[in-house]
């Protein structure tokens, strides 16, 4: 019984970390259909910026985190406007190559600017101590991730469903030309959406740093991890990404409790089975 509770608690907590680092990709890859393998690079940028603000500039944690997220979003918009928008019409393979190349450049730059070592984001006292759940304790930081994850999902679903921007975005993604003819500022929609994806990536980089430490190779190291979540979750479905992250997080945790010497075998096995069962993802909007 305790074992089951442990698996669920750790699984959900880990799954939420997976969700928070992949939700940005679920926007850029899932919604915009842009094969953005540079997602990890934006996540790392967010993390590094936050680390720099908080550690070197002595900003309070919340300020540093928000500042880093906003800056990462702006950087994403700038890169989108300068280069990425030329790639939307290219074949997927070209997008893959470009964004991998971009990731390499980020890796090399991080190495050049901050050296090869792990960058820490100092936690404020209110996040440091474990919180007692009754049957066991859970780090406060992990609770913050869970709450933020839920919040991000709610906000993004609300924006997609009810805001004018959400309607614009869906129209633009469905048919850019028609949307443009209807007077929707498609360039801005793309830039803002990509910026939002980058900002979310940055948020994930910051909040996930406790489990996925920030280092120059971050963009490449965790690429498969986030791709799996988005693919299993379903293209463009933020809720699907969350479901997938929770399922996969729980599976991974269960395999650590029960069969750790099989490595990540079960993780990938379950992923393959889920994909085989639902090739379009667990929750895939606009498809019947």
């Amino acid at each position: 019984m305790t074992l089951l509770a442990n698996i669920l608690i750790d699984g959900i907590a880990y799954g939420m970390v997976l969700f928070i680092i992949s939700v940005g990709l679920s926007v850029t890859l899932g919604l915009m259909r842009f094969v953005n393998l540079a997602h990890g690079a934006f996540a790392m940028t967010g993390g590094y910026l936050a680390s720099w603000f908080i550690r070197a500039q002595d900003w309070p944690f919340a300020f540093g985190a928000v500042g880093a997220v906003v800056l990462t979003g702006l950087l994403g918009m700038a890169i989108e406007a300068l280069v990425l928008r030329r790639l939307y019409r290219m074949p997927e393979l070209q997008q893959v190559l470009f964004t991998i190349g971009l990731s390499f450049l980020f890796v090399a730059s991080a190495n050049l600017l901050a050296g090869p070592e792990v960058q820490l984001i100092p936690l404020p006292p209110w996040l440091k101590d474990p919180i007692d759940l009754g049957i066991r304790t859970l780090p406060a930081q992990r609770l913050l991730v869970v709450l933020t994850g839920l919040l991000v999902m709610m906000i993004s679903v609300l924006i997609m469903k009810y805001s004018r921007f959400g309607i614009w975005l869906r129209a633009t993604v469905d048919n850019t030309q028609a949307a443009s003819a209807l007077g929707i500022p498609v360039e801005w929609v793309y830039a803002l959406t990509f910026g939002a994806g980058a900002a979310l990536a940055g948020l994930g980089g910051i909040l996930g740093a406790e489990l996925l430490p920030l280092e120059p190779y971050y963009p490449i190291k965790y690429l498969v991890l986030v791709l799996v979540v988005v693919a299993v979750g379903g293209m463009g479905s933020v809720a699907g990404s969350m479901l997938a992250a929770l399922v996969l997080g729980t599976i991974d945790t269960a395999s650590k409790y029960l069969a750790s010497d099989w490595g990540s075998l079960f993780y990938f096995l379950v992923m393959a089975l889920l994909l085989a069962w639902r090739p379009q993802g667990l929750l895939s909007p606009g498809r019947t």
Partner: protein
Amino acid sequence: MKITHRWLRNAAISTLALMTSVALMAPDRAQAQVKVGIIAPFSGPFAHYGALFKAGAEAYLASQGGKLAGQSVEMIYRDEGGPNPAKARTTAQELVVNDKVDYIGGVVFSPNAFALAPVITESKTPFVIFNAATSDITTKSDYYLRTSYTLWQVTVPMAQHAAKKGLKKVVTAVMDYAPGVDAENAFKSEFTKQGGQVIESIRMPLATNDFAPFAQRIKASGAQAVYVFLPGGPPNLGFVKAYQENGLRQAGIEFLGTAETDEFDLQKFGDSALGLTTAFHYSAAHDSPANKAFAAAVAKQNKDAVTNYATVGAWDGMYLIHKMIEATGGKRDGDKAMAAAKTQKWDSPRGPVAMDPATRHITQNVYLRVVEKGPGNLLVNKEVQSFGQHGDHGLGK
């Protein structure tokens, strides 16, 4: 399908690239008397090893006035990348055949060290391993020397210490790869021999990001202590964090480690590392004139470099190469050099050390250390006890 001009162009470009590369690499360096090739990761997630090897080796060279036994020495650095034996072998082959190196040093990863066996045997090139820690590497060729450590070497005294302390039930938690399995076997066999009991052996996948489940398993096992082995870098931080956050310390489960509190990562642990005990062969806080000189020499070479097992492995490795050059008078004579190296005994920054002629592995003191606050509020591995001289206990197991 149809052959177009494209392939012709592609082929031409690649040919050109090859030729250019050859031109770029044409040796136009001043001819040194002795050449030493260092293979280490200079790119990729393990690049810090390369930097530390380089700092240690260059520092040693500088401490000898830039010459070893009166011979001018040229150091040639080659990238190891990650575990990639095929590439490592090619690199060694090029060092021997093209660059005509007299000695090879370095190598972080065991598979890469294994891959060099045919090359060094055939070319009779002494190869000093600065890190790769799987026990039986040195048995694969007579030209291997090792100035680092093996997991058996540091774990056996740790297991004896645990038993002596009265611990009866211990859990082992190791990373699921070759050195980890070595560590687990070493602890299990020695601790059982001493009358203790290993109640659970946890192998943690290399790709683990979240260590909380393992911390919970350790806690639930009812053990008095946990013996740990993790490779350097992020997993260390993750595991120690999980150890703290899941209340293992409060539960009184003692931490018995080896390389986890490595100086390269140590400061990042923050206060959570205080009180962790480890058994290891080198601490930057080792109090001896040799260690102080070593630290000063390294700092002079590279102010960012820390002194840890990688740096000291390279430093002592260069000492061995120095002695081999001395014995051969700078001539290329692998057998004579090996004969001299096998019997060396010297005062290393880690304490008194000697080469074991049978295994060609270093015999050294193993220390029990505790993480404490040192000068400048920095964390240090304080040596609290010496377990005395130990060789590699891992061979023949």
